[in-house]
């Protein structure tokens, strides 16, 4: 931070807060209530939540505990952006969104009272990946169990997760597929799977390899990376879990793994991805479910599967370089 003396006069800004209100026990539908207040430049979203409760309506409910960004209780959404209330400066959000801030719980459909949600699904999915070190520990070891700095570095950022649920409830895949374990569970699965003391790596890789609930259902939207207040970058851990499935030979041949591996097949031949081949190769006989779309593409002249002259794949110039690089850089097999 620059050491220039800042203007000491507090610059407040007039802010209109629209807060989501709902009591699952008494309300038929949720509603929004408006509060106006002068917001100081050092006030946090948590301060504003407190002021709603203390100055306007004592029945207003929200979770808070440690108030310094470590307990993970106070995650809410402000104008759609997941924030940790106790860490997020309010005026910064006014700079982003203007002087109307909308406070909503992380997941409106799970609202219990105002900002408080039922986080049961989060904890259930978190528990499903064994979020702990599983090891036979000698109670009387002759020496300490040492870990190299590199081994720690490997999982350190994933270890910063405070289970606030911001990424979990920002994930669109989870919104439409209730089996999906979600980014927080995957970050935890990664964290413990690369811990050198742990003995449940294969278990976790198998759990997270399941189609429907595992990492292959990630839509790659990066909402989790954007939502995390601790820079855990869950999607990066998801990519690592994908790679580990191949490294540990846990990956089975299915539509998702063939889709990933099939890219090399095309790139080797053309430099480009053969869009038709990747669908055929990944799906096998399942390709029939794409027929209606295939006909639409043929009709629009986008693809020409039956016309060899027209179905000419483009080829990258200097293709032999690409082929050589694949040969000498390839690390995984399916």
């Amino acid at each position, binding site marked *: *931070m*620059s050491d*220039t003396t800042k203007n000491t006069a507090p610059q407040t800004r007039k802010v209109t807060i629209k807060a989501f209100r709902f009591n699952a026990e008494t309300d038929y539908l949720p509603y929004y209530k408006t509060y106006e207040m002068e917001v100081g*430049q050092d*006030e*946090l979203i948590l301060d504003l939540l407190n002021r709603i409760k203390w100055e306007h309506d004592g029945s207003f409910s929200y979770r808070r505990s440690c108030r*310094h*960004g470590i307990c993970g209780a106070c995650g809410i959404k402000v104008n759609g*952006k997941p924030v940790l209330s106790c860490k*997020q*400066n309010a*005026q*910064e959000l006014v*700079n*982003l*969104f203007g002087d109307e801030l909308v406070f909503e719980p992380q997941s409106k459909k799970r609202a219990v009272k105002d900002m408080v949600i039922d986080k049961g699904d989060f904890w259930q999915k978190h528990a499903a990946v064994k979020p702990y070190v599983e090891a036979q520990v000698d109670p009387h070891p002759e020496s300490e169990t040492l870990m190299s700095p590199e081994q720690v570095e490997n999982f350190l950022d994933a270890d910063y997760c405070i289970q606030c649920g911001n990424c979990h409830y920002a994930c*669109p*895949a989870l919104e*439409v597929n209730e089996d999906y374990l979600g980014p927080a569970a995957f970050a935890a699965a990664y964290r413990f799977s690369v811990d050198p003391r742990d003995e449940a790596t294969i278990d976790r890789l198998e759990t997270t390899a399941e*189609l429907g609930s595992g990492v*292959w*259902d*990630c*839509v*790659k*939207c*990066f*909402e989790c*990376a954007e939502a995390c207040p601790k820079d855990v*970058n869950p999607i990066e851990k998801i*990519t690592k879990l*994908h*790679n580990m499935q*191949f490294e540990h030979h846990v990956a089975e041949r299915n539509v*998702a793994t063939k889709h*990933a*591996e099939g*890219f*090399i097949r095309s790139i080797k031949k053309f430099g*480009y991805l053969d*869009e038709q081949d990747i*669908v055929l190769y990944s*799906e096998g006989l399942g390709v029939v479910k794409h027929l*209606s779309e295939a006909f*639409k*593409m043929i009709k*629009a*002249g*986008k*693809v020409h599967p039956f016309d060899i002259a027209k179905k000419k*794949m*483009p080829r*990258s*110039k*200097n293709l032999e*370089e690409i082929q050589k*690089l694949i040969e000498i*850089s*390839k690390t*995984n097999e399916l």
Partner: protein
Amino acid sequence: MSKLKYALYTGCTARESTPELLSSTLAVAEKLGIELVLLDEASCCGASHLQDFDEFLSLVLNARNICYAEKLGLPMVTICNTCQLNTVMTKERLDHDPEMRAKVNEKLAEVGLEYKGTSSVRHFLYALIDDYGLENISEKVVKPLSHFNIAPFYGCHNIRPSHIHYKHNAATLPPEGEYDIGEGGGEMLHHEEPLMSKYTGENPYAPTSLDRLIEALEGKAVQYESKNKCCGFHVDLQAPETSNALTGTALSDAIDNGADVVVTPCPLCQLNMDLKQESAGKQLGREIDVPVLHMPQMVALALGCTPEEIGLKYNVTKATGLY
């Protein structure tokens, strides 16, 4: 303004199932006097799927693509959000991880190449807005889009993760010392990577670039909640129901807020949203019928290009009302 010149990384889709993206991009460049040199040596970016299988190989291949822009001494532009993200993620990694850079360069040396990190990598959308300028584009409009309600669909890989896009898509970095905006928690939040929106107007939760472009072409930008959401393209094979639900919800949201047409800078979003309307509609139990244009198709139309020049016949959901 001196003539703008870029190395164009087309990606696969523009050379295969969305030829209209390439032709409309070239048409826009010609109308605006922007010189685009096609990177014909480039390969597929891996589209995040090769990354799932073999992360290192994907770094090597993407680094090679950047090498060819560097050899030309030109900034690279992309016309696909997924190409953009995979390329800048590679660039980020190699620019900040000397060990990985050495490992990648060791492989590249085998084919006589070296990644140096000298070319910037940006999406064509931001080159148009920040380098060419919205006001200058406005001046070239011959067929204003004033009759149309246009729903901007941003596509994930151009707006998230924002700290990466902030660095690479933003034309101008903020002046030194402007990062500290009074964080209350006693931390220097965003000191290194300030929120993108503060300087470029691109907030991943309320992006504006496409909106501003639409307005520069005198169209009316539709406001709707799904404009920064995911279309589901990347799980279309393994989880078609997820993909249909996301595509269908986004398109329905655009339609219900009055969209005559949807426009997107990402050909993967375009392909998914254009092609899957029937199956998404079936799953959601409603009719979905709205043309989906590539961003350069929309710009080209306003600049006076013909439907033939921008390959409108290749759009599956016909955009007949637009010209």
